[in-house]
């Protein structure tokens, strides 16, 4: 437990220091949401109708683009190799890193969502549903993303490969997430599906990611 907390604390501290880019992703998220009205026009009714989708696309892009941070810094300075021999299993370390990543990536998105709600003329019930959907769905996004990050960690110019791999696999999250907000019927079902997907993904992804990290380190 102490080792888990140590990894968690380390990642959080590293990200919030000067060299880390903790808030850049939030800025990206808000900016994507702000850029969309330039593309589709300032018609408030239209924006309100498209708002759930826009918020989810912004969250998607931000999460996918932030994936590299999970393992890249540790891989570059060699700490990832050391973590293979830590006191707790690699799967637990990945779980701690996932939690840190969620706290650094998804939680700021959720906190920044009122800004997007105002920009995209969402009303209160819609925004509340959006927050709920993001809370239920971002763990699944982060979990899939962790697998993508682990798979591409040993590539020098991995670049956009992890997002390209993970985006098709994460489409169910997008479908259920948007349905939770906007669907006239079935939003309750969407919540259940999304939560199930998140729980399953979070449970299984550390094992897949650990396997990928071990293979990459050979």
């Amino acid at each position, binding site marked *: 437990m102490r080792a888990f907390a140590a990894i968690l604390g380390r990642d959080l501290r590293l990200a919030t220091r000067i060299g880390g880019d903790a808030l850049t992703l939030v800025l990206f998220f808000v900016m994507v949401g702000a850029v969309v009205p330039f593309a589709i026009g300032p018609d408030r009714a239209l924006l309100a109708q498209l708002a759930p989708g826009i918020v989810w696309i912004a969250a998607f892009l931000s999460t996918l683009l932030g994936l590299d941070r999970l393992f890249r810094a540790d891989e570059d300075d060699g700490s990832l190799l050391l973590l293979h021999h830590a006191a707790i299993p690699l799967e637990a370390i990945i779980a701690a890193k996932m939690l840190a990543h969620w706290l650094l990536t998804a939680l700021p998105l959720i906190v920044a969502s009122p800004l997007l709600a105002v920009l995209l003329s969402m009303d209160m019930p819609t925004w509340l549903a959006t927050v709920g959907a993001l809370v239920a769905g971002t763990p699944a996004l982060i979990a899939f993303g962790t697998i993508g990050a682990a798979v591409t960690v*040993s590539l020098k110019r991995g670049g956009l*490969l992890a997002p*390209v*791999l993970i985006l*098709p*696999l994460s489409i169910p999250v997008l479908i259920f997430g948007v349905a939770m907000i906007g669907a006239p019927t*079935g939003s309750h079902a969407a919540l259940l599906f999304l939560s199930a997907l998140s729980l399953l993904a979070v449970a299984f992804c550390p094992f897949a990611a650990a396997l990928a990290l071990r293979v990459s380190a050979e």
Partner: protein
Amino acid sequence: MTDLASAPKPNWFSRLAHPGSFMAWSRPIIAPLAVLTALLFVVGLYLAFFRAPLETENVGTTLPILYMHVPNAWLSQFVYGLMFLAAFGTLVWRHPLADVAAKAAAPLGAGFTALALYTGSLWGRPTWGTFWEWDGRMTSTLILLFIYLGIIALWRAFEDQLKAARIVAIVTLVGGIDIPIIKFSVDWWNTLHQPASIVTATGPRMAGAIFLPLILMVLAFTLLFLTLHLSGMRTEILRRRVDSLGRQAAMRAAP
């Protein structure tokens, strides 16, 4: 002192697993397979274009596209199933040729999926009036195409193909588990967003005259895949040998 005569005879598993064995037994069967494939195509296309009834209830004169579309769609899923099994072979059983099979199958699968989407589009235009419709099946096939292309990109991103093999196997397995979830979520999404007109083509009733050419075309395309896959595997093994020879030459040339 063991000599060649008392060495264990290759059993069926090593014939499959040993690259040298594989090259030996696969070489003589590629040409006959290709001939058989061509034959099936000729017979199937003849029956499809000249013998099948052209006027059917919901499909009309566009029926021949069906004979191209269905085999491609079937193969796009079959090939992924094959890649899924190969991924198991690489990770769980450490089969030496499983990764070669997976690597050779990926571009073929992507090609068949793209062809399925293309022929489906061509079929959709006269049938539904539009080249693309976001219905459950087309959307799921599009996502499958993206997964294939991502896997191909992953193969090409690694220098060490043996490391790539295990990484790609992990991604293939995760993708394989996710594909039913994707299919389910897309179908569920589609029922929420049911378009105004009835756009799902139920497909023609399978009268015998329609069914036989279809089976023949499916068989023909499957054999086409088999031929291309085997020769793709051979090419990949040869490619790896070339790489290895290049590395050995480089090591000899180094001072």
